[in-house]
């Protein structure tokens, strides 16, 4: 019990003395607390003791309220260096009275040894036990020197930059011998602001400041302390960092341009994709315009659609509406830009370019060009013929005139060439024509051909004085031996029996080379030359003497033609009574006339066979002919 009470007393004593002790500012420099107590003690006391280099140190005192002791010499400083148990108090080795400072030089400074300081007046000793310290604990190094900065880099956006700050250790601190190890703290702030930003404390003599802003001035200062100690020295004088706009605009502008370009392209692509995916028809029409359907003037485009063959035949044959006359209703009122299939009568002269024979055949062949050309080029645009090359050139593949020629040949020259190759040769011999007419003409200038039993081709049975051509099947025609000359004659041959299925005896007739004009009124385009070529080659491999053979165009975007077993003509014969006249020519469509708008009028031919003199005015009406317009899908329905 006694022990506990004595210990309690001891604790009480301690508490009391601690209060007294806490008020003494002299001990503050021992504690590592950098704040000064608000109340200064009245008696003389030491204000601070500081070492700058771990080799010397200084102590400052204050007389407190005892102003009579403020005169120099009134107070004396004594210290006790407790390096041995029998140490004694000694007086300050060096006074600096003006500062009330006591300086301990290197001889009197020992590290790791406790110093106790005392102030003595005449007869009073002012001593605080806590004014004892070891030198290493009171070290506050001088600020570093030679603080400067270099620009490290600038961000690509040109907004921020990095700076490398470097400095020298304080000259008073002996770092080179390893006696003092110092670590540094950099602080920076925007000029005229109040908050300093401190970087990480580190022992090296350089540090990078990241993320400074262009055009803003910064203030930087530095201080240091001994490693693993707590007391920092004073701050150095600040330096100022200011980086203005970098003149190398090209760099950042290039960067920005690239960004804009990339994002723009990506954005456009995304928008297009969205439009396509969402299938907004209106927008899709604008972005990806569809291929227009064939537009024949006077014919309702509805008729050209699938399954409406009868009406179309009716119209074409002139029934009901008077045919394709100028009085035909304008079905394309809302599309004023539509250009119709036209036939240019003047182009008939072009047919005589190569061969100035001026034969009927040429003219004959010159006239139906619109159809064939129209069908052959595969262009989605209707072609107007007055211009030879324009309009067609864009749709025209220079390689394909030969095929084009062949098409023409095949369609207009019934009969059978010796072989397709021969005809092809002819075609190829023709110089690259700017127009269909040329090769067309030249096909005739070739080897003698015998067109035998070309059921598939429209045989010209008659040439009208008006310039129209009567196409009739089943008539044998022979091209005259005058190969040089444009011996036309769409030879009509083609017995009807060839059309029939029992055409096996037609084998002796050369392989039927015919080409099916696959017309797709749906508007996905006409058989291209390529298709025609393929059709012809396909045909060449087909069984000879088979009668009509239809060809499936590849790629089969159009409806495939009827099978090869189709013995019937590719052209459906309308059931109109007018067709009777045309029993022998039931397959073919006769171009009746070309009206003023250069559209083809398909009419039954007149009874008489006019001399094959084409007048210069091909715009006369041809006799109406019951003709049928067959669409490829209907070919499948044809029975042999």
């Amino acid at each position, binding site marked *: 019990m006694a022990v506990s009470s004595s210990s309690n007393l001891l*604790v009480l004593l301690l508490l009391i003395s*601690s209060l007294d002790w806490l008020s003494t500012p002299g001990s503050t420099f021992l504690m590592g607390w950098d704040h000064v107590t608000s109340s200064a003690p009245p008696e003389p006391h030491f204000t601070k003791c500081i070492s700058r280099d771990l*080799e010397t140190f200084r102590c400052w005192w204050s007389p407190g309220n005892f102003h009579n002791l403020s005169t120099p010499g009134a107070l004396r400083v004594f210290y006790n260096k407790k390096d041995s148990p029998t140490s004694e108090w000694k007086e300050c080795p060096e006074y600096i009275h003006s500062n009330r400072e006591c300086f301990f030089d290197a001889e009197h400074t020992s*590290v790791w040894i406790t110093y106790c300081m005392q102030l003595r007046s005449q007869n009073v000793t002012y001593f605080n036990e806590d004014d004892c310290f070891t030198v290493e604990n009171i070290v506050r190094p001088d600020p570093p020197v030679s603080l400067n900065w270099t620009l490290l880099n600038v961000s690509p956006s040109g907004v921020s930059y990095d700076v490398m700050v470097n400095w020298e250790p304080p000259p008073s601190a002996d770092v*080179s*011998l390893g006696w003092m*190890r110092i670590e540094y703290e950099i602080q920076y702030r925007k000029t005229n602001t109040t908050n300093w930003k401190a970087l990480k404390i580190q022992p090296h003599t350089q540090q990078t400041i990241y993320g400074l802003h262009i055009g803003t001035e910064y203030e930087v200062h530095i201080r240091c302390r001994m*490693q*693993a100690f707590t007391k920092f020295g004073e701050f150095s004088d600040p330096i100022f960092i200011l980086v203005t706009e970098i003149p190398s605009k090209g760099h950042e502008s290039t960067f920005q341009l690239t960004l804009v370009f990339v994002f723009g392209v990506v954005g456009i692509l995304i928008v297009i994709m969205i439009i396509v995916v969402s299938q907004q028809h209106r927008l899709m029409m604008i972005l990806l315009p569809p291929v227009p359907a064939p537009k024949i003037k006077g014919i309702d485009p509805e008729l050209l659609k699938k399954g409406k063959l009868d009406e179309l035949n009716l119209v074409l044959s002139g029934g009901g509406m008077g045919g394709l006359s100028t009085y035909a209703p304008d079905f394309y009122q809302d599309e004023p830009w539509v250009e119709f299939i036209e036939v240019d009568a003047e182009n008939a002269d072009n047919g005589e370019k190569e061969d100035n024979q001026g034969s009927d055949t040429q003219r004959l062949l010159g006239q139906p060009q619109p159809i064939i050309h129209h069908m052959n080029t595969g262009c989605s645009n209707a072609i107007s013929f007055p211009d030879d090359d324009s309009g067609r050139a864009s749709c025209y593949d220079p390689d394909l005139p030969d095929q084009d020629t062949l098409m023409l040949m095949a369609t207009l020259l019934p009969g059978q060439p010796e072989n397709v190759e021969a005809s092809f040769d002819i075609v190829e011999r023709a110089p690259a024509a700017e127009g269909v007419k040329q090769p067309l003409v030249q096909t005739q200038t070739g080897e003698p051909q015998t067109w035998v039993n070309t059921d598939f081709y429209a045989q010209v049975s008659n040439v009208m004085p008006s310039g129209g051509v009567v196409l009739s099947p089943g008539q044998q025609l022979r091209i005259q031996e005058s190969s040089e000359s444009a011996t036309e004659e769409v030879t009509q041959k083609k017995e009807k029996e060839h059309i029939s299925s029992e055409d096996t005896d037609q084998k002796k007739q050369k392989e039927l080379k015919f080409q099916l004009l696959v017309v797709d009124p749906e508007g996905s385009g006409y058989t291209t030359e390529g298709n025609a070529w393929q059709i012809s080659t396909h045909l060449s491999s087909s069984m000879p003497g088979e009668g009509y053979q239809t060809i499936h165009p590849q790629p089969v975007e159009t409806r495939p033609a009827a099978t090869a077993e189709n013995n019937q003509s590719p052209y459906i014969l309308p059931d109109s009574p007018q067709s009777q006249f045309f029993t022998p020519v039931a397959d073919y469509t006769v171009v009746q006339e070309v009206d003023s708008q250069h559209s083809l009028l398909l009419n039954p031919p007149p009874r008489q066979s006019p001399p094959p003199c084409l007048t210069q005015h091909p715009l006369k009406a041809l006799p109406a002919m019951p003709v049928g317009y067959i669409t490829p899908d209907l070919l499948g329905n044809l029975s042999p």
Partner: protein
Amino acid sequence: MEKEKETAARKRGEMAHRKTSGSKLLMTVLYMVAACSAIPISDLLDRASQRSDTLHSLSATLTQELDSHFPPIGRMIMPRPSMCHTSSLQTPIDKEQALQVSESDLLSLARSLLQAWVDPLVVLSTSANTLPHPAQSNISNKIQELQQHSKNLGDGLDILSGKMGPAAQTISLLPYRGGNDIGQDKISKLTNFHFLLSCFRRDSHKIDSFLKVLRCRAAKMLPEMC
């Protein structure tokens, strides 16, 4: 037959002889290689001084932690650092003296100091477990780290001393006479704990300073080492 056996035996013997000589040669080569590829002293010193850095930082942190929660009420009655058990060791006390002492002596002093703290650290560690302090767990962990680093440094210095001559091998004994108990009551416990720790902090600074001076001396060619 016998002759054949003899030759075979001789051959075997020769082979064995060759083997042993070969292995000897191999050992020699290995030893030489090991000797030649020994770590230079400056490197060892560098590592040692890094370790002493850590040690000193740890002790400083520990002291701060102790002081933060525990205002040194009892400081006035705290034993003076001159009463540390290592105060009897004569060490350089300023820069001049430190520069005059030889390297081996410096190393010996460092090793002696380190050795003197092995036992007290154990005492500190055990007392930390029951220290009446708010940050007791942190302090306890740090004491254990201190022990670990101290041991590492001691081992490193032992290796180093082997390369620096006989003077470096001598260690002055500085026994700790404080016993295992640092006090019964809370105040004395804290006081003694604080006192011991401050002694350790002073000594760790000494060790660090000596090693740094040694390092700078050894790295004359490489001023950036200092």
